[in-house]
């Protein structure tokens, strides 16, 4: 499956901005089953400086500064990404307690890489309430892949999608209490649950293809930034789950970046001089090429 993705972010500032310093995570990762064939970033006004780096987690990040006065900033990322189908979901797997127990002693590169996602991160503090919620799915001796699907299904069932209920700063504790939120909240919540059981879980930022109602044309710009999570299971590697839709990501999910939580990989961030209030407009278009 190959997609052409256009991700357009526009800031309209109430007062002119004289200087802006931005970092964007809009360049899709290339990994075992996903290849980023092309990537182009266009910024208006034209940036004074621009640099590209690979961050600590292996994500591509672009930095740029705009050093002329502006009251609007438009960031457009265009990419072409091809996807292989996901590996079939493992039928067997180690008991979840075994994973939690063995990981601290695993000093292989894969083990060390996974282990860092067991711990607290700036936006996710594990705690007994999360462990208790997860406990219903993570019963004694249950294989990790099976328990994981069960927890994903429960979050999908028991939480309500509500784009008005939360914002980018809503803590997982509140999401657990109120039982509503958006994709980012459900990903944070499920990560908090897993880390509270000392299981390694990372946050994935990406895109989700949407389908128009039958008989209607595809609406350009109606697709969305999306977020889900990935869990390390020794023997199988990282397993992606999407609690918002209760699916295992495969041919409709394109991965942009991953990190410990949203804060590590927020698609667009910046520090500006001036501006005060702003209006933000985001449009994503995901066009299948074959």
């Amino acid at each position: 499956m190959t997609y052409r993705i256009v991700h357009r972010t526009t800031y309209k500032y109430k007062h002119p901005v004289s200087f802006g310093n931005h970092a964007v995570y809009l360049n899709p990762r290339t990994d075992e089953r996903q290849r980023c064939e092309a990537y182009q970033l266009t910024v208006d006004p034209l940036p004074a400086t621009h640099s590209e780096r690979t961050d600590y987690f292996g994500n591509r990040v672009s930095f740029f500064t705009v050093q002329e006065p502006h009251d609007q900033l438009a960031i457009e990322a265009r990419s072409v990404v091809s996807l292989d189908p996901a590996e079939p979901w493992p039928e067997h797997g180690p008991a979840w307690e075994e994973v939690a127990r063995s990981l601290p002693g695993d000093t292989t590169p894969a083990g060390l890489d996974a282990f860092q996602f067991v711990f607290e991160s700036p936006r996710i503090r594990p705690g007994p309430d999360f462990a208790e919620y997860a406990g219903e799915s993570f019963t004694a001796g249950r294989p990790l892949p099976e328990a994981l699907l069960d927890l994903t299904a429960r979050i999908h069932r028991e939480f309500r999608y509500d784009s008005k209920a939360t914002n980018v700063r809503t803590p997982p504790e509140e999401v657990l209490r109120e039982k509503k939120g958006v994709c980012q909240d459900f990903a944070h919540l499920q990560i908090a649950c897993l880390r509270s059981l000392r299981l390694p879980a990372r946050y994935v930022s990406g895109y989700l293809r949407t389908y128009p109602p039958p008989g209607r044309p595809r609406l350009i710009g109606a697709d969305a930034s999306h977020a889900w999570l990935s869990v390390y299971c020794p023997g199988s590697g990282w397993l992606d789950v999407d609690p918002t839709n209760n699916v295992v990501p495969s041919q409709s999910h394109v991965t942009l970046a991953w990190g410990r939580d949203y804060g590590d990989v927020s698609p667009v961030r910046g520090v500006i001089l001036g501006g005060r209030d702003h209006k933000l407009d985001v449009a994503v278009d995901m066009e299948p090429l074959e």
Partner: protein
Amino acid sequence: MLAELLQTPFADSSVYNELAPDGVTPRPHWAPFIDSLTSLGSDELARRWERAERRIRENGITYNIYTDPQGKNRPWAIDPVPFLVPPEEWRYIEAGITQRAELLSRILDDIYGERRLLSNGSLPAPLLFANPAFLRPLAGVGIPPSSRLHILAVDLARSRDGQWWVLADRTQAPSGSGYALENRTIVSDVLPDIFRLSNVRRLAPFFRAQRDALVALGQSDKPQVVLLTPGPLNETYFEHSYLARYLGFPLVEGADLTVRDRKVFLKTVEGLRPVDVILRRVDDSFCDPLELRGESFLGVAGLVDAVKAGNVTVANSLGSGVIETAAIMPFLAGLSQKLLGEPLKLPSVATWWCGQESALRWVLDHLHQVVVKPAFPRRGVEPIFGAELGRGETQRISDQLRARPFEYVAQEQVALSTAPVWDHGQLHSRSLVLRTFVLNTGTGWMALPGGLVRVAGAEGPVVSMQKGGHSKDAWVLWDQPIETFSMLRPRGQPVEINRGSVDLPSRAADNLFWLGRYAERAECIARLLRCMMSRVRRVTGAQLACLFHLHACFDESEPKLPKDRPATARDLEEELISLMTDAGRSGSLASTLDELQRVGGQLRERLSTDMSRLVVQLAESANVESYMLFSEYSAVLDGCLELLSAFSGMERENITRGPGWLFLSLGRRLERAMYSVRQLRELTSMSDDATWPFLDYLLEVADSSMTYRSRYFTTLQPVAVLDVLMADGTNPRSLEFQLVHLADLYQKLPRHVPEDLEAMRHAITLLHSLDPATLNYPLPGATPDNDTRIHLNRSLGYLQDLLDSWADNVASTYFGHARTFPISIGG
């Protein structure tokens, strides 16, 4: 002899007595000092000490206490009796702490480099992964190796058997070396003879080496080094400014710096100055809101990127705080063998990191013997003393440890040694901790001979400057000739005459600009208020209507007058009280004076003591007491206005005419021009023929009644009032006077923008075209929609917009270092 000085016998056998093992006979290295002190006599010491304490207060040596309701600025507490360290003991400590610095520096290199210590199991991974001080954006970044750990502080304590132990390592942005230096200056001044005879190792060579090491970290020919401070609210701000002055580097806050083209610059009114090296006293996670903690205002956006580009060096390196955790202590002995091939010379206090199964079991079994601390300190989490736990609490703490073991360490509590502290003529025995410092000179490690000794505020084992402890100087008594280099210019050497000033930082210019604006704004508000408050209860009809017109001259977007019905005199009275006293209302006199004080506080080091004091007095000058009558409020305003004129007098007579003064005056003129324009606009908007009381009020507010009367006697005519308040260039309160001075001050500024100067000159030309002498301005009672009046009103409106844009452009050019928008010249 010693017995005379001792208040209580020093014989407490449960701790190590630094002065005298048996409580009365001094150890050999203390004996000469005690002899000298005894012969000096306690009265003489008391006299000298009183003088020294006065100097501490006058020099503003302070340490800020976070939880102190009195706020900041607590005088630095220091003890005149130094802590003495004999040569052989210092050699032992020095060898131990320099080895430790090398070891910690290598561990840091590995953590931010290849991370082999993790993959080979020498360092447990959670020490990084669970550690908020591990800054991932800095992993794999190449930096000058000697900036990794430029300076290290090691806290030492001595146990009962005489052994020194490391209590803590400070690798983030260690504080205290500046206070140690200040302590030395004070104590050696109080005890000059004893100091000279004791052959004490000097501190200055260490700071010279630090200065040289920092300069050597710069890439350019003449590197610019700055000291980055979080600002005056920080607990150790005094030390930051003291060290900056002593080392000869500018003291800057994050807002003074900017990153352009991946390089760091210091913003000054003269322009952007490249910065090569940053000695930071801001915790690293606060240093870059773009890549580190997003909510921080203390740092510089883009700093991490500039570091990665190799364009700036930060010392200590960003990320160095990761090894401050006590959780690393149990592993240092093994790491020393592995990395240095030698045993650890100075032991750490016994520490268990609970992330290891066996350590956790031991701690749970011995909870009552240890102190439990968070491995990765977070605000508000205090150590738990196991011995003080009740039964229920023991269970609760054990559960916490079991739930997230890697977040906790347990440490043995060292019974601290005691040293003599002088108090009211006698010596008392107090627990002590010695903070030592090690510097990476670029070619090796150098220890500060001595350090900062902290002693408990009372008997007992808790030593903390945050909790009211004292500090002491530490004298390393030497058996070799000592180097007596001084960083200060010797008295006998001639100085070069210098009338220039160093570049004015933009933030200071910004604050001075606003100091001028707020002082003038307060005066304009107070004058309007006084004029109205003295009348509002006495007038009716046309006069009252004119007071409402005067009320419209406040810069107030949300007046609190009723909107659903015509406002009464009573409504206006309440509104005036609110405009005078409501500190929560922006635009009120009270909040303006608060702002004046805030800005003045930022300028503490640039204002004279008299001026600073006036700013503080002003902040309370508009306060009214609940028992006061409304009729007394104008008297309060009189007092406030007197202080304000004292302030503007000092401004004129006591400040050198450098760029700082230009910004202060620019702010004042701009604000006065803005108020003047608003009042003139109000006047020219009034079309009824009952304007004459308003004319009277305006003259009073502008302090121009006498001028007017001397020229026109008592005939009040709008056109004559306009001439006095708008066009008369000899009246320091007229609009013309403000605009001419604005243009004049502005063109004296370095790198002023020609277009902005042109805009102000255009404004003056426009004003001159409105000469009341040639204007056909309506007499009272004339037709309401007179063209001249409408034209005048429109022109003033245009001037008002121009002043707003002009103020924005001055701010962009000099404070923001950004390009400005052209001011549209229309009319």
